[in-house]
């Protein structure tokens, strides 16, 4: 498994998601309507370019997930859960950027419907971000399931009743 390229692909995905910032106007509150329209006109091509970028990110992550699921390589992909952590950060970034995007565009078009082309672009972008979130989660599961098949196993973590279960899980992580 090409873990180095996978690491870079995940970092690159995170960078692309962060670039949503570049099309999120800081604040449009109380600006005249014609100014907001001009801003919308200027941002529209950038939104489209960003949509293509994020679609590629989604596709790449999905391909990686499928590769991992098909892999019969017995070496661990993510023994220290570093990629899991990177994907968690990517997911958190998506949620944050999505929220900022929606807030900004509510301010750009507070009454709704004045900029239908922009509305459609925003809706696509939001949907893309949701898909990237799902694919990032799918990749996390694919990697973890792969590694679970070949992980090291200890001998003394088992339980045959509730009390033993609580004790076992407390040894793995405190105050379970």
């Amino acid at each position: 498994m090409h873990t180095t390229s996978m690491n870079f692909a995940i970092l690159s995905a995170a960078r692309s998601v962060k670039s949503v910032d570049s099309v999120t106007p800081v604040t449009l509150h109380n600006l005249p309507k014609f100014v907001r329209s001009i801003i919308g006109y200027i941002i529209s091509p950038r939104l489209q370019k960003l949509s293509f970028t994020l679609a590629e990110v989604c596709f790449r992550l999905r391909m990686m997930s499928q590769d991992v699921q098909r892999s019969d390589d017995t070496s661990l992909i993510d023994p220290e859960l570093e990629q899991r952590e990177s994907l968690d950060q990517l997911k958190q970034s998506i949620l944050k950027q999505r929220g900022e995007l929606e807030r900004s565009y509510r301010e750009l078009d507070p009454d709704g419907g004045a900029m239908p082309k922009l509305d459609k672009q925003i809706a696509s972008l939001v949907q893309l971000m949701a898909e990237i979130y799902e694919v990032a989660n799918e990749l996390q599961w694919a990697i973890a399931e792969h590694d679970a098949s070949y992980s090291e196993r200890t001998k003394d973590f088992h339980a045959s009743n509730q009390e033993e279960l609580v004790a076992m899980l407390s040894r793995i992580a405190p105050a379970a």
Partner: protein
Amino acid sequence: MSGNNIITNIDGNNATFKKTFAKLKHQQRKEATFAFGQLFMMDTDQAPARLHFHPLKDRMVPSVLDPTKKVKVYTIHITADDTYKASFTLENGTAYLRVCGEHDQVDNSP
């Protein structure tokens, strides 16, 4: 009730399970502990609906007991809001825990 489908033991020896379980937040670990507890004496043919017990589609993994053989992977929901799940294999009445993590489905609505 078929005796062959009753879970009597839970195995947490898998390193991936231990690491992914430890990464859960405190409240999630608490709820997961309760969920895993529900597995004891569970008949897999009549699993409680709240656990959302089902096999993963098209997923066969090496058996813990005999790595030359492949077995199914099952999942249950481990938090009350169904946002987290755990996977395991079932072999001779033992649930061999594998992974804990966020469920696949996310809220697509803004």
